[in-house]
């Protein structure tokens, strides 16, 4: 057990009267200053005037695309596996394009359950999911609107600075998938 000593109060603090007056002085000081010098009031006209966000903020997710426009996501379920809030729901399907065999048929994030931990981004082996939309305000009157689906996630815009060339796609020709030549 750790004993945390409580600071001892002086006698004038114990009376409270002087302390109340001291606190009121602070309030009155602010009031008088704001009445006479109005341009120094610290107010923020939110949401009309958005506050600049820190560029590394973990904001609303998006899914990235390859150069040819197809989603980078291969529906590996890593993000769904690692998500502590169980808010990602994926259904995989066979892709008809023949280059990457697998793609997501459904990809849903229940943003109301999301705790914005960013684990999904960390887990993704394809750099397919990012939280760089800068979109921190998600408002709606309907619960369904908070379930972000594949189409919505794929059309999210990312902030430019985050682009990395490490994951550039390369197109390689493969031998035909037939037997017995």
């Amino acid at each position, binding site marked *: 057990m750790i004993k945390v000593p409580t600071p001892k109060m002086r006698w004038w603090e114990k009376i409270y009267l002087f302390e109340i007056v001291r606190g009121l002085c602070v309030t009155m000081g602010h009031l008088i200053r704001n009445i006479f010098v109005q341009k120094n009031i610290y107010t923020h006209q939110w949401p009309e005037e958005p506050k600049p966000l820190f560029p590394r903020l973990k904001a609303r997710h998006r899914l990235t695309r390859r150069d040819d426009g197809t989603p980078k996501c291969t529906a590996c379920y890593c993000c769904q596996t690692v998500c502590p809030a169980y808010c990602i729901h994926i259904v995989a399907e066979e892709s008809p394009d023949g280059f990457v065999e697998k793609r997501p048929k459904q990809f849903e994030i229940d943003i109301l359950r999301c705790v914005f931990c960013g684990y999904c981004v960390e887990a993704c082996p394809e750099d397919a999911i990012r939280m760089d939309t800068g979109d921190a305000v998600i408002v709606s009157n309907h619960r369904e609107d908070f379930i972000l689906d594949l189409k919505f996630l794929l059309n999210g815009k990312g902030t430019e600075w985050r682009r990395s060339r490490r994951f550039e796609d390369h197109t390689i020709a*493969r031998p035909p998938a037939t037997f*017995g030549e």
Partner: protein
Amino acid sequence: MGSVTIEIDGRQVTVEEGLNVIQAAQFLDIQIPHFCYHEGLGVDGNCRMCLVEVEGMPKLQPACNLFVKEGLKVRTRTPQVMEHRRLVLECLFLNHPIDCSICDQSGECYLQDYYLDHGNYRSRYDLPKRLKRKRVDAGPHVILDAERCVLCARCVRFCDNITKTGELRIVNRGDRSEITLFPGKKLDNPYSLNTVQICPVGALTSKDFRFSWRVWFLKSAHSICTGCSRGCNIIIDHADNHAYRYQARCNPQVNGYWLCDDGRLSYKMINDHRLHVLTEPSGNSRDTFPRFEEALSGIGRQIEGASSVTALMSPDLSNEDLYAASRFAKEIAGSQRMAAGSLKPDGVEDELLRKADAHPNTSGCKTLNLWGDLKPAIDAGGDLLLVFGSDLLQYDNALLKKIRSSFKSIIIFASHEMKGFETGAWLIPIACHAEMDGSFTNFEGRVQKFDAAIRRRGDTLPLWRILGKIGRAMQREWGWSDLAGLRRDLTDEFPQWKEALIEATPSNKTGVPLKMTGTKEAGEE
């Protein structure tokens, strides 16, 4: 066979003669990595992953081809062995597409596992990877990806030695070698999905399971395949109360390591066309609690009022359900005629596993002295027909009409939808084998228990429970509160079940043969 004592990593173990070092090490929980060796296929010795150090031998020895001998001293994790494994893995990874995020095998892939155990190196190879054929349609159930193959030849040996159809070969040499089918041939033997199960990597994948779920989400339960009367031992892999696949579970006395494709794909019956709610003859469903109980007393009144009762039982029911159903028919319904039998046409039979009799529990019916011909019982007609099991009336439309005309009322206990009985009969949902504990007796008289895999859906209950409920609705002291009680009663009447149902261990790996039936010798391999 005698037993010998050997030493592995400084620990003594006494094992049977004839085992190899990989098997012997498993008794000590020491895993020796291997690709090409499979217990059901024997030694091939082409992958060289299993090399171990043996005292008195100057070079590393393959553990798969090293059989136990008195005084053998093996070391499996010396620096030399570890370095060797690292190099074998490096070689395998030279041209391997690291497809893990797409590959169905991830989570149960030998390459992934061994890489984590021994890897942690960076690739020293900066030439372009050699590309091979991907997503090749190898047969009706299998897709092949030649790039992921580690050339262990397990699948080749399976097709050569087990099914003796020989569709697969490894062609070319060096880094060009790849797995292929003979020109014009397809991997379409009735056991083709076994190659998917034994492939240590994701080179052969099942069209059915492909991309449907990731294996690390799956939970497993020990069960018995219901496809035919062999009663192959299986694992039901399920997640979110949905069955995703069957995998073969080794039982040398019944199915060895294998499973036929039809049986393996029969898991779909657990999910599809299930009967979930109690339905009245008018076609209304009674799915809420008080209405459900009311319906049961309605059924009870119908049974009490009937003057002549016929009971039909399906050989798809478990031993426990059959026993409960026969007691119910005798003691509660007072039925005059009672028969268990099948109207289903026979399936295909072959030397390996498949049996013509398409029911898992025909022997159980015979042991309980219920087996008989259904047709005379149906022809005789009567007041009330009790049907236990959903497969009985599905195969013969003429018969169906006859039943409707010759019985005044029909009560069907079914796990699946009953075509032709949407109205005109009480439909009572019962659990299927994946949703309850029970046992089947296979064609050789081997009693094998199975465990519940998924939760029951809707209003389904095991048959013996719903019968107890109806008994109580009829104000009769009848029924059992748990399966153990039912099994005790069953074994009091049929003492030959005792060992199998009560004394067998919960995992009951091999099942217990009934002594009184004409038991054949252990199954073919």
